[in-house]
């Protein structure tokens, strides 16, 4: 029943355990990376998914709310407020009034220095990951905002690095939530921004220690 090829068997069992879901987090992450890099392993995983798929019949349907507007806003950057919503008239009117009131306040508060939108500089991305960070500039404010993918798992953090030419990367800070805003400190076209995965508290060495997740080149300022 077992083939003499031990290596092949190990990969086959790893694929099976990955699909079954029993591996600890680190081994799961390693397996997920291997799926993207090793076609044979990816195929073994796909075969196990099919083999065990009869168990999927046991998952009951549970009606989900319509979260499509939020999902599309995340993916396509549409403002959530502009999404069509199914609200009853009075709620819609009330909501509209509240928005108008809020806008009134906003206009009063910000009229002298109306904030401009962030101009997009680049997107940090990678073929190997769904993670995306959008980098935008407004005046001398630099904002790095996650627009796809998930934050680092517990015990880890995303760290932002600036790489100028062949010089060693310089840490610009940790991105603990959805975004990070910094002073722009003389960015110029050709500079590279990168995000690495580091232990909570950031790289202990001052240089990236974890995998580089996504990168992007500053195109124009």
């Amino acid at each position: 029943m077992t083939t003499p090829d031990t290596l092949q068997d190990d990969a086959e069992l790893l694929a099976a355990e990955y699909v079954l879901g029993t591996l600890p987090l680190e081994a799961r992450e390693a397996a997920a990376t291997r799926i993207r890099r090793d076609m044979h392993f990816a195929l073994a995983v796909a075969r196990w998914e099919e083999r065990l798929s009869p168990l999927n019949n046991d998952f009951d349907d549970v009606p989900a709310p319509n979260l499509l507007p939020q999902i599309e806003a995340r993916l396509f950057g549409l403002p959530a407020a502009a999404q069509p919503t199914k609200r009853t008239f009075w709620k819609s009117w009330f909501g509209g009034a509240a928005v108008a009131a809020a806008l009134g306040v906003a206009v009063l508060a910000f009229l002298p220095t109306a904030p401009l939108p962030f101009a997009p500089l680049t997107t940090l991305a990678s073929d190997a990951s769904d993670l995306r960070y959008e980098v935008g500039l407004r005046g001398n404010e630099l904002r790095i905002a996650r627009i796809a993918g998930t934050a680092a798992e517990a015990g880890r953090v995303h760290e932002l690095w600036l790489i100028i030419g062949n010089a060693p990367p310089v840490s610009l800070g940790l991105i603990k939530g959805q975004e990070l805003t910094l002073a722009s400190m003389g960015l110029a076209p050709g500079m590279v921004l990168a995000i690495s995965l580091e232990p909570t508290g950031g790289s202990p060495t001052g240089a990236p220690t974890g995998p580089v997740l996504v990168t992007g080149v500053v195109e124009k300022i």
Partner: protein
Amino acid sequence: MTDDDPIAALLTRIAAQERAAFADIYSAASSKLMGVLLRILGNRAEAEDALQEVFTRVWLRAARFDGTKGRGMTWLIAIARNHAIDRLRSRKVESSNDDGEAVAQLADTGRSALSGLVAEGEARRAVKCFEELEPDRSAAVQGAYLEGLSYEVLAARYGVPINTMRTWLRRSLLALRECLDQ
């Protein structure tokens, strides 16, 4: 290939960036995926949050779907299960002292997953293959797959060392492969 697999057909259109197909797949699959996420995560708010992440991944990864290697719904459920289990495992890192509690909570959720299956064709063979396993081991495989139970939790539930549980499951998986691939 996609004639009898409407989800696969939608995934092909999503891979071509067709947003109407994305809305259609949400209508067609969100209930099933919500069922998967809720079963594994056991928390409605977290399941809804996870559902958004899962559909985000569906859009971003649709081009990687290969209809010759599997069915559309199987692919979607794999994304949902993987994401839910990753969340569970991350949660355990945060609160590694809660194992006892987790075991207590999970101890009475075991039931035979395949018992409710309409036994025809492939499903009938799957039922037969699971029945060939020892009942404890069959239940452990199903608990891992359907509830996202880890080796630690399963070992505690069945009162065996973790390595023994790992061996049980590996042998069960190989036996299932043998039986299902016939």
